[in-house]
């Protein structure tokens, strides 16, 4: 195991971005996710708020009860996306072998790149420095021979930490830690292992492979390797995204078809704009619905011709919606629409009928206006209804929890 | 000869259209099941393709072929038409079926003068199918006539309805049905009277029942069940409610038929009690009705009739069928309230 992998994790990312922008928020309990009386969940909590037991995923109502003095912020996804893009480009300066894991986390294969910076440790320190300097937020970095140990190390060093596990010491580094620290061990697995008398990763590593496999099936083998600090997964730069989607949770569960359609129109337009910006066309449209009881369905439709047209995405989405809601008695909690099977945006020109061509130039024109004046500068009649429902932000409507509304 | 019985308004209008050469490109025939929509559609198809002197003559090759469903230019599309190879029953009239019609509608008649496309159960068209058909209705081909049949045009897209000339077909008078059954010697006179009353003006049903004893047998079973349940205890009633509710999820129509039969029965009870026994539906059950009628007061019967009607209405509005039917069963009046 000669490689050196870094795991870089931004500390309390959404909150840190807000604090960097507004220094008055510093050192205070801050919650990003929405208004405390809202139905959303905590998307991120500052370390000060975490001291009160707040954590991501907790309903906002509960968060405000535990920590009434917390400052609640709606949050803005575009802002975080920009910060994330800067973060990734800083990392890319250090090594091209970069695998983003969400907005605020990434693995970096640092093997061989340390010579420029002196050592891996110094290289990591420089990364932290640049992030602090350019984004005003702190990062925690773990360095180890494999992804899993690097991640545990960065986790342990938080916040603003830097921890290197020397080559060959991975297993002894993990051994004293509680099993919940090991990535891949969720609540259920933890309980099961505790039932077997296993509480530390060290004890887990001594369990025979056969026993693990009989309890956990195929993932038992992974646990077996991870517990010994063995992880030969490579850092994989992402392939070009193969799909794009947008979704949102309603502030109140709804059965109102015209609201559902208006929202679908808006989300579909954002998906279409994204496709056109990336010069792609899609062959497949997917509708996602979550009902009041949290059952979630997705329905997809493959198109005969690829599209990047808002109208086609919307029409297909509405057809799927009508089909899905036929006979459905539950109100809808969340709606989303996405496209996949993206192909290069070649567009077959037509000889006799120019209606699709007109539609496409219309979409392009709308995109241009929106780039210049903001997304809500020009709207289709159907989405105007959303004005009454969602507050308007600088870059489109602010939908509910930003972690969902991308 | 127009084969359809009654429906003089619709027939007169079509005849006038034929005489003036002002046949519409699309007709929408609206009326309850078995009232004569298909018969009228085929009458029009025959009139348009008849080779005789007085269309529809009924005796020329074209008329006979159309009546026998063998004419190349008269196509009937419904849930069970156009063998799709796998013999799976369809839940809706599909866009592919509409496309087939469209394709055919752009070709000239094969043997007759006009292509006629009958869509039986137009309300069963899928959304895509209806939208696809709309295009054809908007740009009709010369000499092509679409006839849409439906018992409920409120579920058809307004855009489709507005492209069609709408004709309503109404139930016939009981006496009219009886006369036809006797004239055509389909059944013996007493049975003709019974069927005429049972069919509620839908001649097609009476003719089906005349040809197929099963329908009357089913009715006898349902009446037997009704009598059992009415005299039974709550346990049996709840069992029946849950059985009907299960049946409802398979076949809504069959449960509505049960409710219709119950309604007929309790109305008959009312009539018998009021002394107008001649106008009852279940003429063959008069003795049983008179006997049963003694056990209930007028108010009880009236109130239960209201319950049956309410139950039917609630089922149409998609209320929980089991709940609705259980409530109905609980409302069955107790005997001896004279």
């Amino acid at each position, binding site marked *: 195991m000669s490689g050196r992998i870094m795991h870089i994790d931004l500390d309390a990312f959404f909150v840190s971005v807000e604090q960097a922008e507004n220094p008055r928020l510093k050192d205070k309990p801050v919650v990003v996710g929405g208004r405390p009386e809202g139905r959303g969940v905590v998307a991120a909590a500052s370390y000060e708020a975490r001291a009160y037991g707040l954590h991501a995923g907790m309903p906002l109502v509960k968060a405000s009860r535990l920590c009434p003095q917390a400052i609640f912020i709606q949050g803005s996804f575009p802002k975080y996306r920009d910060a994330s893009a800067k973060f990734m480009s800083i990392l890319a300066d250090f090594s091209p072998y970069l695998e983003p894991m969400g907005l605020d986390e990434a693995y970096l294969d640092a093997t061989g790149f340390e010579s420029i910076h002196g050592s891996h440790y110094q290289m990591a320190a420089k990364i932290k420095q640049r992030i602090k300097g350019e984004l005003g937020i702190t990062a925690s970095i773990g360095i180890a021979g494999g992804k899993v140990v690097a991640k545990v190390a960065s986790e342990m060093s938080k916040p603003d930490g830097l921890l290197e596990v020397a080559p060959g010491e991975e297993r002894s580094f993990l051994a004293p830690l509680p099993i919940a620290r090991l990535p891949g061990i969720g609540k259920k697995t933890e309980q099961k292992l505790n039932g077997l008398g296993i509480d530390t990763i060290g004890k887990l590593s001594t369990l025979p492979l056969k026993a693990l496999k009989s309890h956990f099936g195929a993932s038992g083998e992974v646990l077996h390797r991870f517990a010994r600090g063995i992880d030969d997964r490579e850092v994989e730069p992402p*392939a*070009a995204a193969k799909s794009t989607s947008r979704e949102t949770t309603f502030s109140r569960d709804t059965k109102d078809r015209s609201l559902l359609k208006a929202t679908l129109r808006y989300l579909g337009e954002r998906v279409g704009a994204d496709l056109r910006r990336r*010069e792609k*066309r899609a062959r497949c449209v997917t509708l996602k619905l979550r009902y009041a009881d949290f059952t979630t369905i997705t329905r997809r439709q493959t198109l005969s011709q*690829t599209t990047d047209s808002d109208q086609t995405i919307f029409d297909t989405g509405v057809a799927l919606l009508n089909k899905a809601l036929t006979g459905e008695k539950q109100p809808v909690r969340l709606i989303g629409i996405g496209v996949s099977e993206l*192909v*290069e*945006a*070649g*567009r*077959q*020109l*037509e*000889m*006799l*009928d120019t209606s699709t061509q007109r539609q496409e130039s219309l979409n392009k024109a709308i995109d241009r206006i929106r780039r210049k004046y903001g997304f809500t500068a020009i709207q289709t009649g159907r989405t105007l209804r959303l004005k009454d429902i969602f507050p308007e932000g600088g870059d489109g409507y602010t939908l509910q929890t930003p972690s969902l509304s991308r | 000869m127009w084969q359809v019985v009654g429906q003089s308004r619709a027939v007169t209008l079509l005849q006038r259209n034929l005489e003036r050469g002002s046949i519409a490109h699309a007709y929408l025939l609206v009326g309850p099941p078995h009232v004569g929509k298909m018969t009228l559609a085929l009458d029009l198809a025959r009139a348009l393709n008849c080779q005789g002197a007085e269309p529809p003559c009924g005796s020329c090759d074209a008329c006979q*072929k159309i009546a*026998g469903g*063998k004419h*190349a230019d008269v*196509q*009937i*599309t419904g849930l069970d*038409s*156009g*063998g*799709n*190879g796998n013999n799976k029953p369809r839940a809706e009239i599909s866009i592919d079926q509409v*496309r*087939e019609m*469209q*394709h*055919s509608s*752009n*070709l*000239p008649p*094969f*043997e007759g003068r006009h292509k006629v496309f009958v869509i039986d159960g137009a309300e069963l068209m899928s959304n895509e199918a209806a939208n696809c058909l709309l*295009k054809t209705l908007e740009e009709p*081909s*010369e000499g092509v006539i679409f006839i849409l049949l439906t018992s409920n045009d409120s579920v058809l897209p307004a855009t489709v309805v507005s492209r069609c000339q709408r004709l309503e077909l109404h139930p016939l008078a009981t006496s009219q049905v009886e006369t036809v059954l006797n004239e055509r010697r389909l059944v013996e006179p007493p049975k003709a009277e019974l069927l005429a009353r049972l069919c509620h003006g839908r001649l097609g049903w009476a003719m089906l029942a005349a040809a197929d004893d099963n329908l009357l047998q089913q009715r006898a079973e349902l009446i037997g069940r009704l009598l059992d349940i009415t005299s039974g205890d709550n346990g049996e009633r709840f069992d029946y409610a849950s059985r009907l509710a299960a049946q409802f999820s398979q076949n809504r129509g069959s449960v509505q038929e049960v409710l219709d039969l119950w309604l007929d029965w309790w109305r008959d009870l009312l009539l018998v009690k009021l002394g107008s026994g001649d106008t009852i539906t279940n003429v063959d059950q008069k003795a049983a009705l008179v006997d049963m009628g003694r056990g209930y007061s007028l108010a009880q019967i009236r109130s239960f009739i209201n319950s049956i009607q309410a139950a039917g209405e609630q089922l149409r509005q998609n209320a929980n069928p089991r709940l609705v039917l259980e409530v109905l069963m609980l409302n069955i009046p107790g005997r001896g309230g004279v």
Partner: protein
Amino acid sequence: MKLSCLQENLDRGLSVVGRAVAVRTTLPITNNVLLATDQSRLKLAATNLEMAVSCWIGAKVEEEGAITVPARLLSEFIGSLPAEKVDISLSPQTKTVGLKCARFEARISGVDAKDFPPIPKVEGGVTTKVEVEALRQGIARVVFAAATEESRPVLTGVDAVFEGDLLTLAAADGFRLAVYKLPLAKAVSKKTEVIIPARALGELNRLIAEQEEAVEIMVNPDKGQALFSLKNVELVSQLIQGTFPNYSQLIPKSSTTKAVISVGDFLRATKTASIFARDGSGIVRLVVTPGGEMTPGKVVVSARSEEVGDDVGEIDAMVEGEEAKIAFNGKYLTDVLSVLGEAQVSLETTNPSSPGVLKPVGVDNYLHVVMPMFVQW
């Protein structure tokens, strides 16, 4: 009805009419094939109400008669018989057809022939005659360009204009247009324009594949029918009602780049590129570069795919005019290049969003217009 004929003849006859048998239909009898005695021959006929094919085979007729029987069942049975004499007899009461050949015997229930849709008689129209080779060429070069979906019904047909001693066939599906002119062996009395379903023409081409005799054509636009008389075979096609778009205005009058390319090289390069373009939108890019004083002109054919990789092929060409970049759906190029029998083809273009025109070099009776794809270069 009682007759006998040879198994080979009956088998061939059934395969001739077989493709006119309806597949999905609201009229079940069109799944059947009609067997009828016709003087000393046996007539076989089938129709899907869009076209009808009749075929006559030699037979020894002992008793006149007619019946229809399920086409697939009959042809599968006949196909499995030895090449010997087949005896056919009909029992009129039960409408059962008895078939006997060597030691095989079968009985098939039939349906009354009078219920079979009468094959339209085409008369009173314009008559003409076409040499079979010219017709084969003409159909092959246009029929693939017709639309396969029904949204614009006239485009599912081939426009046929008979004028003087010239027949012009044209097909278009909204993305491409093919126009072929062929001589008529017998001039028509008046100009006649009809739209023949592409499926019927495709079937006609199959039927004339092994024929040498000229094909007689009778067209009656008023009744909407056309009759093609072959040797012992007749095909009647219903004509599509409507007006074919005026395509002459779609053919570019001039161009800025003209490349003359070997058909074989161009086809090979396009097919190779299409493999790479398959998971994309089928985009094949062409870069046409004029030659210098010492270097020949060339056409670079390329495709790329995110998953598989990319492909670049280069072919020599004689290029007049400016350098050009244009992208096409690879399928549209291979479709047309595959039917060209000539050695060379010219490709004329004006700009990346104007149609490209392909013409075989050395003849002036065929042209093919393809709309490009708009892509990022």
